[in-house]
């Protein structure tokens, strides 16, 4: 590995990383070899049809999967085991049903590697509950919360320990449009405030353009990168209004032209 200059060191680097899964009648190629560099504090959105390997990339970055070929580097170190520098918010929330909202949010702070005094942890939990709009729901169990509230708890639980990189897999997929915008706004504020690097998987092109520094469009399975487009709108953006600007419309049209072919081809079998 070449010596790296900390000033230009990539946060995440995929070098010819590919993934094939064994299935009953042979192999499924989930991801063609991909080269990708994510800079520190960059917000990258991954879009593409279902099954194009977007989630596979997040799993590679998190160290939950090993690439079949190629390498994955985090801070220039090869990712060979679970990557504890990332917070991962999956499509399905993984809240613990026996813990109420506040206790779910606190769980990372109970772990030895992030241990902190009880009252400090309580303060952090109270702060993030306030920030993310969960006040009054602290004692609710996940079963008592609406889908939107559960997403907020999952987001708070991931943000509370301030991971330097956030991996998000369609985190707000099933929410109504207004609530989604609200959460996107909070996400943008928090990740910028805390200087996080973000990889955000979505199938909503509008969401991607609203938030990202770069949008990466994937082809249908087997997934590979079709297009990488920088979004030059200054951040932070007004998530409620940016979609009515002409630049946004132009970018949307440009990227949709690329994406639509893939969506047609990538219709799930």
């Amino acid at each position, binding site marked *: 590995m070449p010596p790296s200059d900390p000033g230009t060191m990539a946060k995440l680097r995929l070098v010819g990383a590919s993934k094939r899964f064994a299935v009953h009648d042979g192999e499924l190629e989930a991801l063609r070899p991909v080269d990708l560099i994510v800079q520190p504090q960059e917000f990258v959105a991954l879009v593409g049809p279902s099954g194009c390997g977007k989630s596979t990339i997040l799993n590679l970055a*998190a160290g939950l999967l090993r690439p079949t070929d190629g390498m994955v580097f985090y801070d220039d170190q090869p990712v060979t085991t679970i990557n504890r520098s990332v917070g991962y918010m999956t499509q399905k929330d*993984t809240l613990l049903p*026996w813990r109420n909202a506040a206790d779910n949010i606190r769980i990372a702070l109970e772990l030895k590697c992030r241990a902190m005094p009880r009252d400090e942890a309580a303060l952090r939990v109270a702060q993030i509950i306030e920030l993310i709009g969960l006040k009054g729901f602290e004692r609710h169990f996940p079963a008592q919360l609406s889908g939107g509230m559960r997403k907020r708890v999952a987001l708070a639980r991931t943000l509370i320990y301030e991971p330097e990189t956030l991996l998000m897999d369609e985190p707000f997929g099933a929410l109504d449009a207004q609530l989604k915008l609200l959460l996107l706004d909070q996400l943008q504020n928090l990740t910028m405030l805390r200087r996080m690097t973000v990889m955000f998987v979505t199938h909503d092109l509008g969401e991607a353009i609203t938030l990202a520094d770069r949008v990466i469009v994937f082809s249908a399975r087997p997934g590979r990168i079709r297009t990488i487009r920088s979004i030059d709108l200054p951040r932070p953006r007004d998530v409620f209004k940016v979609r009515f600007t002409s630049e946004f419309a132009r970018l949307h049209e440009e990227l949709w032209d690329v994406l639509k072919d893939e969506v047609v081809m990538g219709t799930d079998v």
Partner: protein
Amino acid sequence: MASQQISAENGIPVVVWQIGVGIGFLAAWEAVGHTASGEWTSRPLLIGQRLLQWFSGPLYPHLATTAIEVVAGLLVGVLSGSVAGLLLGRSPVLAVVLRPIIVAFYSVPLVALAPLFIMFFGLDILPKLILVSIVVFFLMFFNTFAGAGQVDADQIAAIRLMGATSRENFLKLVVPACMVWIIGGIRIALPFALVAATTGEMLAARRGIGFLLSDAANQFDMTGLYAALVILMLLGLAVSEAAARMERRLLRWRDATE
């Protein structure tokens, strides 16, 4: 729900019907008891008298003996069974090696082990305690083992990414996730614990409700026999009520709804 419908239709609360049926049954029994075959059926009034007499003192050493066997056996069996289930359920290597052995032992009808334990450990509490522990162990083991295998892999990934060690993963995720199964196991095990204790006592004992029962039977004391059965029924009810309370308390989150 159903009970409300009945009471709405008839204007008489269900509990009145239940008391009525109960009294009718006891009255019929009392009547049969006065006939020629009465010496085999005894009579509710005689049984009641016997129970009163027992409750005035002589019952308590027997009750205490059975209670200690059941409670201590449950403690040992629940702890060992759920720990074994958790460990084997989360460790494929241990499971492959040990599970067939456990299954083989489980194929022996457990009550058939009672004479063996009585030979080894005498007539007192110990052999029954062991029998109860073993019966409970197997029920707890199989239940917890099934639960431990079903812990959500995504939840494990999530807590490991947060930085949980294997130990923290086990204590904060696997154990509480298996609580539903452990408590389900305890609910199944409770009546079996009572069965195991009384069976052991009936085979050979100096004290215990099972001893009261077999002692009465040996002396053709039908009233004593029925009285002992009533005590067992009350014990069984108390045990399942305790189980239901514990389940409600420990699994509050599951029943929580708006």
